[in-house]
Protein backbone atom coordinates (compact mmCIF):
# COMPACT_ATOMS: atom_id res chain seq x y z
CA UNK A 1 0.00 0.00 0.00
CA UNK A 2 1.43 3.36 -1.05
CA UNK A 3 1.46 6.37 1.27
CA UNK A 4 -1.36 7.94 -0.76
CA UNK A 5 -3.59 4.96 -0.24
CA UNK A 6 -2.79 4.64 3.42
CA UNK A 7 -3.69 8.24 4.15
CA UNK A 8 -7.00 8.40 2.25
CA UNK A 9 -9.54 5.72 3.07
CA UNK A 10 -11.34 5.91 -0.25
CA UNK A 11 -8.16 5.26 -2.21
CA UNK A 12 -7.12 2.61 0.30
CA UNK A 13 -10.37 0.76 -0.33
CA UNK A 14 -9.58 0.24 -4.03
CA UNK A 15 -8.26 -3.16 -5.07
CA UNK A 16 -4.54 -2.95 -5.94
CA UNK A 17 -5.02 -3.48 -9.67
CA UNK A 18 -7.61 -0.73 -9.88
CA UNK A 19 -5.54 1.61 -7.76
CA UNK A 20 -2.54 1.00 -10.02
CA UNK A 21 -4.59 2.19 -13.03
CA UNK A 22 -5.34 5.45 -11.25
CA UNK A 23 -2.00 5.97 -9.52
CA UNK A 24 -0.06 7.52 -12.45
CA UNK A 25 -2.63 10.30 -12.55
CA UNK A 26 -2.64 11.09 -8.83
CA UNK A 27 -0.53 14.10 -7.87
CA UNK A 28 0.28 15.13 -4.29
CA UNK A 29 -0.63 18.70 -3.47
CA UNK A 30 -0.47 21.08 -0.52
CA UNK A 31 -3.73 22.82 0.37
CA UNK A 32 -3.56 26.24 2.00
CA UNK A 33 -6.08 27.38 4.60
CA UNK A 34 -8.96 29.27 3.02
CA UNK A 35 -8.03 28.31 -0.50
CA UNK A 36 -10.93 28.00 -2.93
CA UNK A 37 -10.57 24.74 -4.86
CA UNK A 38 -13.59 25.35 -7.06
CA UNK A 39 -16.86 27.28 -7.02
CA UNK A 40 -20.01 27.65 -9.09
CA UNK A 41 -20.41 28.04 -11.99
CA UNK A 42 -16.84 27.06 -12.91
CA UNK A 43 -15.81 23.63 -14.17
CA UNK A 44 -14.15 21.44 -11.56
CA UNK A 45 -10.44 21.40 -12.38
CA UNK A 46 -9.45 18.49 -10.11
CA UNK A 47 -11.00 15.93 -7.79
CA UNK A 48 -9.26 16.04 -4.42
CA UNK A 49 -8.61 13.20 -1.98
CA UNK A 50 -7.57 14.79 1.34
CA UNK A 51 -5.04 12.96 3.45
CA UNK A 52 -4.50 15.23 6.46
CA UNK A 53 -6.39 18.30 5.25
CA UNK A 54 -10.09 19.14 5.51
CA UNK A 55 -12.26 20.54 2.74
CA UNK A 56 -15.55 22.36 3.42
CA UNK A 57 -18.49 22.62 1.08
CA UNK A 58 -20.35 25.92 1.28
CA UNK A 59 -23.73 26.96 -0.01
CA UNK A 60 -23.81 30.70 -0.70
CA UNK A 61 -26.48 33.28 -1.45
CA UNK A 62 -25.97 36.04 -4.02
CA UNK A 63 -25.16 38.50 -1.20
CA UNK A 64 -22.20 36.34 -0.19
CA UNK A 65 -23.75 35.01 3.00
CA UNK A 66 -23.90 31.27 3.46
CA UNK A 67 -22.99 28.29 5.56
CA UNK A 68 -21.16 25.04 5.45
CA UNK A 69 -23.28 22.15 4.22
CA UNK A 70 -20.64 19.43 4.39
CA UNK A 71 -17.04 18.65 4.96
CA UNK A 72 -14.62 15.91 4.01
CA UNK A 73 -11.26 14.73 5.20
CA UNK A 74 -9.24 11.57 4.77
CA UNK A 75 -12.41 9.50 4.47
CA UNK A 76 -13.41 10.77 1.05
CA UNK A 77 -13.06 13.26 -1.77
CA UNK A 78 -14.14 16.65 -3.04
CA UNK A 79 -15.64 16.73 -6.53
CA UNK A 80 -18.49 14.21 -6.48
CA UNK A 81 -20.09 16.16 -9.33
CA UNK A 82 -17.52 14.54 -11.62
CA UNK A 83 -18.59 11.06 -10.51
CA UNK A 84 -22.18 11.95 -11.37
CA UNK A 85 -21.19 13.11 -14.86
CA UNK A 86 -21.45 16.84 -14.08
CA UNK A 87 -18.54 19.09 -15.05
CA UNK A 88 -19.46 22.27 -13.19
CA UNK A 89 -19.24 22.89 -9.44
CA UNK A 90 -22.54 22.95 -7.55
CA UNK A 91 -21.04 24.34 -4.34
CA UNK A 92 -17.94 26.11 -3.11
CA UNK A 93 -15.10 23.83 -2.02
CA UNK A 94 -12.73 25.59 0.35
CA UNK A 95 -9.83 24.41 2.48
CA UNK A 96 -10.89 24.39 6.11
CA UNK A 97 -7.73 22.85 7.53
CA UNK A 98 -4.47 23.16 5.63
CA UNK A 99 -2.53 20.05 4.79
CA UNK A 100 -1.94 17.45 2.14
CA UNK A 101 -4.11 15.86 -0.50
CA UNK A 102 -3.76 14.07 -3.78
CA UNK A 103 -5.64 15.27 -6.80
CA UNK A 104 -6.64 13.86 -10.16
CA UNK A 105 -8.07 15.41 -13.30
CA UNK A 106 -11.75 14.69 -13.88
CA UNK A 107 -11.20 12.99 -17.23
CA UNK A 108 -8.67 10.56 -15.70
CA UNK A 109 -10.99 9.66 -12.84
CA UNK A 110 -13.89 9.09 -15.23
CA UNK A 111 -11.68 6.89 -17.39
CA UNK A 112 -10.70 4.82 -14.35
CA UNK A 113 -14.39 4.33 -13.50
CA UNK A 114 -15.20 3.28 -17.04
CA UNK A 115 -12.63 0.49 -17.03
CA UNK A 116 -14.83 -1.64 -14.82
CA UNK A 117 -14.23 -3.07 -11.39
CA UNK A 118 -15.34 -1.60 -8.09
CA UNK A 119 -13.87 1.90 -8.36
CA UNK A 120 -17.09 3.43 -9.59
CA UNK A 121 -19.08 1.54 -6.99
CA UNK A 122 -16.89 2.87 -4.16
CA UNK A 123 -17.10 6.41 -5.44
CA UNK A 124 -20.88 6.28 -5.82
CA UNK A 125 -21.29 4.91 -2.32
CA UNK A 126 -19.19 7.77 -1.00
CA UNK A 127 -21.36 10.19 -2.98
CA UNK A 128 -24.41 8.74 -1.26
CA UNK A 129 -22.81 9.17 2.16
CA UNK A 130 -21.99 12.79 1.36
CA UNK A 131 -25.60 13.40 0.30
CA UNK A 132 -26.70 12.01 3.66
CA UNK A 133 -24.31 14.38 5.41
CA UNK A 134 -25.65 17.38 3.49
CA UNK A 135 -29.29 16.37 4.05
CA UNK A 136 -28.72 15.92 7.76
CA UNK A 137 -26.96 19.29 7.94
CA UNK A 138 -30.05 21.01 6.55
CA UNK A 139 -32.30 19.30 9.08
CA UNK A 140 -29.84 20.06 11.86
CA UNK A 141 -30.01 23.80 11.21
CA UNK A 142 -33.81 23.70 11.32
CA UNK A 143 -34.22 21.52 14.38
CA UNK A 144 -31.22 21.86 16.66
CA UNK A 145 -29.97 24.67 18.86
CA UNK A 146 -26.61 26.24 18.25
CA UNK A 147 -25.02 24.63 21.31
CA UNK A 148 -25.59 21.14 19.99
CA UNK A 149 -24.73 22.13 16.45
CA UNK A 150 -21.37 23.57 17.50
CA UNK A 151 -20.56 20.44 19.51
CA UNK A 152 -21.44 18.32 16.49
CA UNK A 153 -19.28 20.41 14.20
CA UNK A 154 -16.32 20.23 16.59
CA UNK A 155 -16.62 16.43 16.70
CA UNK A 156 -16.67 16.23 12.90
CA UNK A 157 -13.67 18.54 12.64
CA UNK A 158 -11.78 16.63 15.34
CA UNK A 159 -12.43 13.30 13.61
CA UNK A 160 -10.83 14.50 10.41
CA UNK A 161 -7.98 16.47 11.91
CA UNK A 162 -6.66 13.64 14.06
CA UNK A 163 -5.30 15.83 16.84
CA UNK A 164 -6.75 17.47 19.95
CA UNK A 165 -5.33 20.98 19.51
CA UNK A 166 -6.02 23.35 16.65
CA UNK A 167 -6.52 26.96 15.70
CA UNK A 168 -10.10 28.14 15.14
CA UNK A 169 -11.48 31.66 15.44
CA UNK A 170 -15.02 32.54 16.50
CA UNK A 171 -15.48 34.28 13.19
CA UNK A 172 -14.50 31.17 11.22
CA UNK A 173 -16.82 28.90 13.18
CA UNK A 174 -19.64 31.44 12.87
CA UNK A 175 -19.21 31.47 9.08
CA UNK A 176 -19.19 27.67 8.91
CA UNK A 177 -22.28 27.27 11.06
CA UNK A 178 -24.16 30.23 9.59
CA UNK A 179 -24.62 31.82 13.00
CA UNK A 180 -23.39 35.00 14.62
CA UNK A 181 -20.02 35.39 16.23
CA UNK A 182 -21.68 36.16 19.57
CA UNK A 183 -23.46 32.82 19.45
CA UNK A 184 -20.21 30.95 18.92
CA UNK A 185 -18.53 32.84 21.79
CA UNK A 186 -21.32 32.08 24.23
CA UNK A 187 -21.59 28.41 23.30
CA UNK A 188 -17.82 28.00 23.42
CA UNK A 189 -17.97 29.46 26.92
CA UNK A 190 -20.52 26.83 27.94
CA UNK A 191 -18.39 24.04 26.51
CA UNK A 192 -15.41 25.41 28.39
CA UNK A 193 -17.29 25.67 31.69
CA UNK A 194 -18.45 22.08 31.22
CA UNK A 195 -14.82 20.98 30.89
CA UNK A 196 -15.28 19.71 27.35
CA UNK A 197 -12.88 22.10 25.63
CA UNK A 198 -10.24 24.62 26.47
CA UNK A 199 -10.41 27.72 24.32
CA UNK A 200 -8.41 30.90 24.40
CA UNK A 201 -7.88 33.40 21.62
CA UNK A 202 -8.33 30.99 18.77
CA UNK A 203 -6.52 28.05 20.38
CA UNK A 204 -8.85 25.13 20.83
CA UNK A 205 -8.11 21.98 22.76
CA UNK A 206 -10.53 19.05 23.08
CA UNK A 207 -10.49 17.93 26.72
CA UNK A 208 -13.36 15.47 26.88
CA UNK A 209 -14.21 13.92 23.52
CA UNK A 210 -16.90 11.52 24.84
CA UNK A 211 -18.51 14.43 26.66
CA UNK A 212 -18.41 16.56 23.54
CA UNK A 213 -20.14 13.79 21.61
CA UNK A 214 -22.86 13.57 24.24
CA UNK A 215 -23.38 17.32 23.90
CA UNK A 216 -23.65 17.02 20.10
CA UNK A 217 -26.99 16.40 18.44
CA UNK A 218 -27.84 12.96 17.06
CA UNK A 219 -26.94 14.21 13.59
CA UNK A 220 -23.28 13.55 14.40
CA UNK A 221 -23.84 9.84 15.06
CA UNK A 222 -26.21 9.43 12.07
CA UNK A 223 -23.66 10.76 9.60
CA UNK A 224 -20.68 9.02 11.18
CA UNK A 225 -22.38 5.65 10.92
CA UNK A 226 -23.08 6.28 7.25
CA UNK A 227 -19.42 6.99 6.53
CA UNK A 228 -18.13 4.15 8.71
CA UNK A 229 -20.32 1.70 6.78
CA UNK A 230 -18.46 2.53 3.58
CA UNK A 231 -15.31 0.82 4.81
CA UNK A 232 -16.67 -2.22 6.59
Amino acid at each position, binding site marked *: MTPNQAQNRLLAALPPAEYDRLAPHLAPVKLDLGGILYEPPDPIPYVYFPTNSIISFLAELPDGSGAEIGLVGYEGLAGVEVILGVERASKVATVQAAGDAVRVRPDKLRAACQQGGVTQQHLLRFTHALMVQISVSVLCVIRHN*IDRRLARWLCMYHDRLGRDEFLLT*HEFMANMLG*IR*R*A*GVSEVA*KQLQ*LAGLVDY*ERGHFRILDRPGLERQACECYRTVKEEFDALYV
Partner: protein
Amino acid sequence: MSRDSAGQPRIFLIEEDDETRPVIRQNLKRAGYKVLLAVDEEDALDRADGGCLVVDLILVNLVEKSTDEALRVGRAVRERARFDGATPLVVRAEDYGPDVEGTDVNVGGNDWITYPDDSDQLGRLLRRLLKGGDADGHHAA
Protein backbone atom coordinates in the same frame (compact mmCIF):
# COMPACT_ATOMS: atom_id res chain seq x y z
CA MET B 1 -26.41 49.96 42.33
CA SER B 2 -29.98 48.67 42.13
CA ARG B 3 -29.37 44.96 42.91
CA ASP B 4 -32.41 42.81 43.35
CA SER B 5 -33.49 41.21 46.58
CA ALA B 6 -31.02 38.35 46.03
CA GLY B 7 -28.12 40.83 45.65
CA GLN B 8 -27.77 40.28 41.94
CA PRO B 9 -26.93 43.14 39.59
CA ARG B 10 -29.51 43.55 36.85
CA ILE B 11 -28.64 43.55 33.16
CA PHE B 12 -31.08 44.68 30.48
CA LEU B 13 -30.22 42.55 27.44
CA ILE B 14 -31.47 43.77 24.05
CA GLU B 15 -30.75 40.79 21.77
CA GLU B 16 -32.38 40.45 18.37
CA ASP B 17 -31.04 37.01 17.49
CA ASP B 18 -33.48 34.28 18.53
CA GLU B 19 -30.73 31.63 18.39
CA THR B 20 -28.22 33.53 20.49
CA ARG B 21 -30.56 35.07 23.06
CA PRO B 22 -31.16 31.97 25.24
CA VAL B 23 -27.46 31.11 25.35
CA ILE B 24 -26.36 34.61 26.35
CA ARG B 25 -29.13 34.80 28.94
CA GLN B 26 -28.10 31.44 30.40
CA ASN B 27 -24.45 32.50 30.63
CA LEU B 28 -25.30 35.83 32.25
CA LYS B 29 -27.50 34.13 34.81
CA ARG B 30 -24.79 31.61 35.54
CA ALA B 31 -22.42 34.53 36.12
CA GLY B 32 -24.76 35.81 38.81
CA TYR B 33 -26.77 38.46 36.99
CA LYS B 34 -30.49 39.01 36.89
CA VAL B 35 -31.38 39.33 33.20
CA LEU B 36 -34.25 41.35 31.75
CA LEU B 37 -34.83 40.72 28.07
CA ALA B 38 -35.96 42.67 25.04
CA VAL B 39 -36.06 41.21 21.54
CA ASP B 40 -35.59 44.43 19.59
CA GLU B 41 -35.56 48.23 19.84
CA GLU B 42 -39.35 48.58 19.97
CA ASP B 43 -39.65 45.99 22.70
CA ALA B 44 -36.82 47.64 24.65
CA LEU B 45 -38.39 51.10 24.46
CA ASP B 46 -41.76 49.72 25.55
CA ARG B 47 -40.12 48.18 28.61
CA ALA B 48 -38.29 51.41 29.36
CA ASP B 49 -41.48 53.48 29.25
CA GLY B 50 -42.86 54.91 32.39
CA GLY B 51 -39.64 54.89 34.34
CA CYS B 52 -40.30 51.46 35.87
CA LEU B 53 -37.24 49.75 34.41
CA VAL B 54 -34.63 49.16 37.10
CA VAL B 55 -31.30 47.89 35.81
CA ASP B 56 -27.58 48.36 36.39
CA LEU B 57 -26.34 47.96 32.85
CA ILE B 58 -27.70 47.86 29.31
CA LEU B 59 -26.22 45.26 26.92
CA VAL B 60 -27.07 45.61 23.24
CA ASN B 61 -26.48 42.94 20.59
CA LEU B 62 -28.24 43.69 17.30
CA VAL B 63 -28.37 41.71 14.07
CA GLU B 64 -26.89 43.22 10.90
CA LYS B 65 -26.75 46.71 12.35
CA SER B 66 -23.76 48.94 12.95
CA THR B 67 -22.28 49.67 16.36
CA ASP B 68 -23.43 53.29 15.90
CA GLU B 69 -26.99 52.08 15.48
CA ALA B 70 -26.67 49.83 18.52
CA LEU B 71 -25.35 52.77 20.56
CA ARG B 72 -28.25 54.88 19.41
CA VAL B 73 -30.71 52.21 20.57
CA GLY B 74 -29.02 51.80 23.93
CA ARG B 75 -28.94 55.55 24.53
CA ALA B 76 -32.57 55.90 23.51
CA VAL B 77 -33.53 53.22 26.01
CA ARG B 78 -31.50 54.87 28.75
CA GLU B 79 -33.20 58.20 28.07
CA ARG B 80 -36.69 56.70 27.89
CA ALA B 81 -36.11 54.89 31.18
CA ARG B 82 -34.89 58.16 32.69
CA PHE B 83 -31.55 56.68 33.77
CA ASP B 84 -28.73 59.12 34.02
CA GLY B 85 -25.68 58.75 31.80
CA ALA B 86 -23.72 56.82 34.38
CA THR B 87 -25.71 53.62 33.77
CA PRO B 88 -23.22 51.60 31.73
CA LEU B 89 -24.11 50.80 28.15
CA VAL B 90 -22.23 47.99 26.39
CA VAL B 91 -22.56 47.25 22.69
CA ARG B 92 -21.22 43.95 21.45
CA ALA B 93 -19.74 44.35 17.97
CA GLU B 94 -20.29 41.63 15.40
CA ASP B 95 -18.26 42.48 12.32
CA TYR B 96 -14.67 43.44 13.07
CA GLY B 97 -11.12 42.73 12.15
CA PRO B 98 -7.99 41.72 14.03
CA ASP B 99 -7.03 45.36 14.54
CA VAL B 100 -9.69 45.80 17.24
CA GLU B 101 -10.12 42.20 18.35
CA GLY B 102 -9.66 41.82 22.09
CA THR B 103 -10.37 45.48 22.89
CA ASP B 104 -13.07 47.27 24.87
CA VAL B 105 -13.43 50.83 23.62
CA ASN B 106 -14.94 53.64 25.67
CA VAL B 107 -16.96 55.84 23.33
CA GLY B 108 -17.88 58.52 25.80
CA GLY B 109 -19.23 58.63 29.33
CA ASN B 110 -19.93 55.09 30.44
CA ASP B 111 -20.63 53.79 26.93
CA TRP B 112 -18.55 50.92 25.61
CA ILE B 113 -18.11 48.86 22.48
CA THR B 114 -16.58 45.43 23.04
CA TYR B 115 -14.79 43.44 20.31
CA PRO B 116 -14.34 40.01 21.92
CA ASP B 117 -11.62 37.61 20.86
CA ASP B 118 -12.33 35.07 23.56
CA SER B 119 -15.37 33.83 25.42
CA ASP B 120 -14.74 35.67 28.66
CA GLN B 121 -13.88 39.16 27.45
CA LEU B 122 -17.47 40.37 27.80
CA GLY B 123 -17.65 38.80 31.24
CA ARG B 124 -14.53 40.66 32.36
CA LEU B 125 -15.93 43.96 31.10
CA LEU B 126 -19.26 43.42 32.85
CA ARG B 127 -17.53 42.56 36.12
CA ARG B 128 -15.44 45.72 35.85
CA LEU B 129 -18.44 47.95 35.11
CA LEU B 130 -20.66 46.37 37.75
CA LYS B 131 -18.27 46.39 40.68
CA GLY B 132 -20.29 47.00 43.80
CA GLY B 133 -19.65 49.71 46.39
CA ASP B 134 -20.32 52.94 44.54
CA ALA B 135 -23.06 54.61 42.52
CA ASP B 136 -22.00 53.44 39.03
CA GLY B 137 -25.41 51.98 38.37
CA HIS B 138 -28.44 54.16 38.73
CA HIS B 139 -32.06 53.60 39.44
CA ALA B 140 -34.78 55.06 37.38
CA ALA B 141 -35.77 58.52 38.59
